[in-house]
């Protein structure tokens, strides 16, 4: 039976140091050394991942006799395949290799079987070499020197007596080229480094091999394979030569590296672990600090979290005993068994008594702040503390019962606002009105300018204080006049979107107002101008102006008409000055 004890931050199991806990993680004592772990936490302190420096284990079969005892424990078939062959050795200062030749009963070379964990990465590697006895470089000249060409010609000539036509020189040259090609393409022996992965029930789920290529002909070729391990189980690695050719292997190595993330935990909002989504690397001490960074008492056979003052059961999302601070003013209306003020997404609980009960600042002043033990920032203002932190934006709702007079006032105000913003009211009283003056000089083409005072009558930026704007226009048609302009405009979208920025239309932003005007002119002028200004919100602004002043007629016809585009810029906004 195990027993557990703690002395401050030192945790003991059966009298032996187990680990040292601290704010950022812990130092686990494993195999007479500390393994340092860092906890990745979310905003409530829930430990999501445990990170460690990855551990690597390298096993090498050098084949050298002085390492025989150690290597024969780590690998099989070391002794059976060892051969002294200094010219094929790859170990610095060594001379022994693994010599394989199927005809000599040496099919299987050194092999290793070892346990693996999900998350491991394995790298296996070896140097391999074979000797090609045909070291002579073949070419047509070689054939001429050795007399092989004459032999082939003679043979083909004898063969040709049975054919319709005798062999010619071109045909013979082609045959020699084919023979050379065939000899030079002699494949490397079927020798390889192989691996097989088995799960914990010994079911084979993956296997592979890296075959020696022609690069290994007369010199060492390094074979390397990297494998990501997806299941707990074990791996078999081995060297094979299936042929009767001599193959030498040396420096067979198996390196296993553990993962950086050794533990990943997912929870439901109340802290119940969702094990199907999580991950736990095997063979190490499991971190018990999980939900709210509290210790899970799993080793006692019950799934409870130790918060200090009480034990919390994530299965039912409740405390096992009554709250010692149940009569605190902040908790007086709550069940003494309920946890995290019934909002585990927003609150944790530092010690099992109250998520955020203490206000430990004496005589606070406006704007003063403190951080609660629950980790949230509080700011003092208007005689009370307001929570600032947290993942979710807080909405403060203040309930207040209005008097009958106030009620009437609010209702009247709302009704008046509704009426003012109704489509009917907007049709009669526009969103924008303007008064100003300007002149236009268009005869076929031309332009004009004007200066106006504008009032925004609706929306959150409505004001009786005007904005002074100037408008420049270009167009075509005929309109030569100087007029006083009284205008109106309506935004076609909702009232709350109306802003004073809508008074400005800049060609620099790719925007323009399109307008058309017409009127009666015979010395004096009276006319109207219609306009439409597209906006980026999907709704435009429709406007109209009454133009009264002086204007020239279009010849005998006492009228004028023109159309074009214009820009408007705010020169000065009296409302801005007020703010």
């Amino acid at each position: 039976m195990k027993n557990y004890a703690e002395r401050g931050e030192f945790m003991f199991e059966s009298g032996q140091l187990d680990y040292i806990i601290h704010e950022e993680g812990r130092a686990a004592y494993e195999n007479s050394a500390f393994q340092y772990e860092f906890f990745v936490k979310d905003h409530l302190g829930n430990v999501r991942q445990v990170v460690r420096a990855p551990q690597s284990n390298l096993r090498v079969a050098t084949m050298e006799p002085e390492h025989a005892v150690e290597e024969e424990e780590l690998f099989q078939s070391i002794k059976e395949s060892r051969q002294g062959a200094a010219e094929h050795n790859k170990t610095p200062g060594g001379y022994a290799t693994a010599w394989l030749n199927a005809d000599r009963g040496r099919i299987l070379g050194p092999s290793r079987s070892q346990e693996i964990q999900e998350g491991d990465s394995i790298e296996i590697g070896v140097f391999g070499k074979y000797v090609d006895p045909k070291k002579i470089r073949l070419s047509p000249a070689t054939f001429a020197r050795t007399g092989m060409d004459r032999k082939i010609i003679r043979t083909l000539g004898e063969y040709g007596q049975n054919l319709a036509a005798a062999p010619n020189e071109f045909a013979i040259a082609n045959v020699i080229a084919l023979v050379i090609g065939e000899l030079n393409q002699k494949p490397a022996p079927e020798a390889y480094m192989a691996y097989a992965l088995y799960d914990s029930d010994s079911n084979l789920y993956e296997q592979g091999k890296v075959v020696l290529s022609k690069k290994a002909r007369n010199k060492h070729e390094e074979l390397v394979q990297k494998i990501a391990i997806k299941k707990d189980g074990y791996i078999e690695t081995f060297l094979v030569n299936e042929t009767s050719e001599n193959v030498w292997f040396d420096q067979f190595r198996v390196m296993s590296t553990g993962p950086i993330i050794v533990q990943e935990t997912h929870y439901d909002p109340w802290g119940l672990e969702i094990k199907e989504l999580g991950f736990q690397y095997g063979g190490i001490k499991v971190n018990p600090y999980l939900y709210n960074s509290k210790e899970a008492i799993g080793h006692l056979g019950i799934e409870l979290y130790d918060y200090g003052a009480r034990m919390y059961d994530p299965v039912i999302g409740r405390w096992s005993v009554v709250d010692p601070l149940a009569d605190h003013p902040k908790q007086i209306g709550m069940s003494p068994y309920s946890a995290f003020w019934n909002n585990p997404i927003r609150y944790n609980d530092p010690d099992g008594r109250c998520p955020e009960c203490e206000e430990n600042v004496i005589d606070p002043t406006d704007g003063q702040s403190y951080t609660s033990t629950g980790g949230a920032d509080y700011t003092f203002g208007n005689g009370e503390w307001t929570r600032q932190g947290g993942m979710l934006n807080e909405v403060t709702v203040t309930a207040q019962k209005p008097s009958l007079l106030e009620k009437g006032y609010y209702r009247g105000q709302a009704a008046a606002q509704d009426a003012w913003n109704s489509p009917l009211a907007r049709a009669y009283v526009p969103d924008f009105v303007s008064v100003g003056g300007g002149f236009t000089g268009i005869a076929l083409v031309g332009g004009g300018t004007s200066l106006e005072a504008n009032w925004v009558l609706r929306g959150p930026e409505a004001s009786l204080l005007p904005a002074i704007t100037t408008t420049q226009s270009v167009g075509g048609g005929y309109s030569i006049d100087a007029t006083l302009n009284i205008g109106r405009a309506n935004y076609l979208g909702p009232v709350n979107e109306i802003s004073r920025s809508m008074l400005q239309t800049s060609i620099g932003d790719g925007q323009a107002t399109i307008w058309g005007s017409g009127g009666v002119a015979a010395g004096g002028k009276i006319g109207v101008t219609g306009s439409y200004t597209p906006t980026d919100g999907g709704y435009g602004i429709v406007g109209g102006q009454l133009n009264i002043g002086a204007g020239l007629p279009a010849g005998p016809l006492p009228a004028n008409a023109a159309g074009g585009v214009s820009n408007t810029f705010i020169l000065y906004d009296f409302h801005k000055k007020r703010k």
Partner: protein
Amino acid sequence: MKGLLIVGIFIIILLVPIGIWMQMQGKERGRRHFETFYSAEIDSHIESVRIAYKGTGMKLSDGREFVFYPFTDQDLNEGNIFNYTAEKEDKVVKKAYSDTLYLIKNDKKLAYTFKKF
């Protein structure tokens, strides 16, 4: 001269489809501006503010520039129009996909929601 009047009337008629086309372009542009701004994580200082596209064009000290349409509101920002309130060196903070931009001006923290497209 009569011909000039006809030209004027012709131009007015011609401007109608141009206006429709401009409106469609503007809508698409507004959507693009909104997506850029809405998805942005902002924790920077203002370099400049101007009226842009009938809304707000805000250039930040980190080199980014956004166009958006902040709402003026008595409760959230004390009725301060963003374009007239925000100045160079003021801090602006917004989480990615948050519906609120905070303007921190001296000791004052003003919240602005904005038009969604």
